[in-house]
């Protein structure tokens, strides 16, 4: 397995192979095309009855998949561009996530909704957004994001087979092409994988199967700042970390969860114990993004023990088509480096 894309593709293949209840659904996912980003490539040829190409009806087929999930199947839905998750808001919020709780835990809706998000490809305002923040505060929904630091395919399989709650599985278009991180060939870094205990509300299992990754500069003499991010931005930030270490002797510890919601902030708090400086980086627009809740949960526990709290995110505007403007609006490696340097100077 080489890229995130391959890892995800193989996971879907494996899921289809090992369990007849698994069905894929989405626009243009049949071979030879295999979906806009090719995550479904090769699957419809092998499983023609269980890979269903849909009309352009995001709400309709998502609801339909939810109905299947409630009757024992394990549907995986692809929203062609994550920008279109706006169209499934009602199905997701007023139907899918509500059913288990409002029906007094008598049903489960084990649906996985995959959505490729993100910009940097010049697709413009309606095909470049990072919209998961809309759903991070929705009770009953699990939002996952693979990282090249871990095993994206494994994460997807866990979402399909182990997670009983509905899942929004957020992919990033540029992350698809990222190579899976291999610590053995990356002597500059050290990597730790944390698995958290579940909170008391969910009694069935004891551990979240969603690892949180902690990446450090190998043999870092100190920990200057805790950088929290996910998905593709972790790839960008990983490079920034290296530059900061080598160019400025600033040592960043990066925390990369694979579960975005429900929030799990313990590793962040642990890291802040040393660093006292927090920077949350995300590709979505700034206001009320994922980072706002991370920061809030941190400061509820540490109201006065941090020296710096910052966010780096997209500007609060639509995403422009023009490459120049897009670069200006989305956070990039240079922005992270500059931001961290500034924080270090000021705090």
């Amino acid at each position, binding site marked *: 397995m080489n890229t995130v894309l391959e890892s995800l593709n193989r996971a879907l293949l494996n899921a289809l192979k090992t369990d007849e209840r698994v*069905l894929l659904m989405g626009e243009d996912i049949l071979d030879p095309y295999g979906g806009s980003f090719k995550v479904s490539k090769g699957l419809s040829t092998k499983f023609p009855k269980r890979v*269903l190409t*849909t*009309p352009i*009806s995001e*709400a*309709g*087929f*998502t*609801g*339909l*998949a*939810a*109905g*299947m*999930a*409630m*009757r*024992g*199947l394990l*549907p995986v839905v692809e929203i062609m561009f994550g920008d279109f998750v706006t169209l499934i808001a*009602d*199905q997701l919020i*007023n*139907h899918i996530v*509500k*059913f288990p*709780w*409002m*029906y*007094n835990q*008598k*049903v489960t809706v084990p649906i996985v909704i995959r959505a490729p998000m993100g910009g940097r490809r010049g697709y413009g305002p309606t095909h470049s957004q990072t919209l998961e923040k809309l759903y991070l505060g929705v009770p009953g929904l699990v939002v996952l994001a693979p990282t090249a630091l871990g095993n994206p395919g494994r994460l997807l399989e866990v979402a399909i087979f182990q997670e009983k709650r509905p899942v929004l599985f957020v992919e990033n278009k540029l992350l698809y092409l990222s190579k899976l991180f291999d610590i053995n060939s990356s002597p500059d870094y050290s990597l730790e994988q944390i698995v958290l205990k579940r909170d008391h*509300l969910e009694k069935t299992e004891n551990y979240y199967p969603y690892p949180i990754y902690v990446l450090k500069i190998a043999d870092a003499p100190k920990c200057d700042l805790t950088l929290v991010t996910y998905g593709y931005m972790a790839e960008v930030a990983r490079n920034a970390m290296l530059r900061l270490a080598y160019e400025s002797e600033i040592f960043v510890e990066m925390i990369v969860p694979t579960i975005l919601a429900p929030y799990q902030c313990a590793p962040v708090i642990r890291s802040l114990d040393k660093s006292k400086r927090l920077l949350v980086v995300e590709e979505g627009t700034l206001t009320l993004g994922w980072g706002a809740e991370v920061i809030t949960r941190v400061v509820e526990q540490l109201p006065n023990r941090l020296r710096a709290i910052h966010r780096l995110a997209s500007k609060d505007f639509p995403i422009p088509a023009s490459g120049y403007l897009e670069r200006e609006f989305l956070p990039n490696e240079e922005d992270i480096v500059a931001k961290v340097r500034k924080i270090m100077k000021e705090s």
Partner: protein
Amino acid sequence: MTITETNETLYSMIYRIRKFEETVLENFPKGVFWGTTHTYIGQEANAVGVLSHLQEDDIVFSNHRSHGHFIAYGGDMSTLFAELMGKPSGVCGGRGGSQHLHWKNFYSNGIQGGIAPIATGMALAEKYKNTGAIAIAFLGDGTFGEGIVYETLNLASLWKAPILFVVENNHIAQTTPENLTIAGKIRDRFSSFGVSVVEMDTSDVLDIYQQAGKSINEVRENKMPYGLVLNTYRFGPHSKGDDTRNPQVLKQIIKTRDPLRIQAERVSVGVRENITKKMDDEVLTAYKEALEAPLFEDIYENSSDDVT
């Protein structure tokens, strides 16, 4: 079943629903129920006529006006009363309330239209699993304003979902008459997606029973979606006290279109009296049982942790 038995069963089901709903409306002002409610009075022949053909595993997806569907499905009245009262013993432990029910293969939700794809997906799952079960979804006329209904008709038709869409066209949506919400004809909207549809204009449960039997058979045999448009009348307010229609006109409608009265003529006076008594008893008993069931307050003392 003999014809007489069928007639008596249909009559008693209609009566049962009517009595249940009257009990709800009668007691609402006393403050025993929570929130709001949408009663089914006048439309009973639809639920009873259609759902009499259900088989064990068949699925029913209902909407905001769900009591009649729930009772005709075989749902327990005491737990339904309790649900409306917000009690732990309710159908959904008081979490759902009137519009959000689930029991066995019965489901309802209070968002207009959104249930359509879900029910269709359920039907497809059963087809995929080869259980032979079909789904039935109830939709009101006003709900045909929602786009999701059409996405669903398209998908159901393309993928041949074994589902019967039952439209209860009571010619009004909350307070808005059909002519302000529906351009063209509901019937044609089915055909335009290649879904066969039958339209009826009757409050006679026997007519509906017979046609629904055929339609459900077709769904079951051909494993395809069908539509059944039932023109009908809501006798009461949309929820409570919010009826803006001309009372004279309504009175006239009730005179000619009361499913209870129509079906009563097919049941002998003696049997009718027995049914009435029996149903009155059952409803009253169910109501009392619900009323006497413990409150959340009785169970939890200031502890909210256990609730979630």
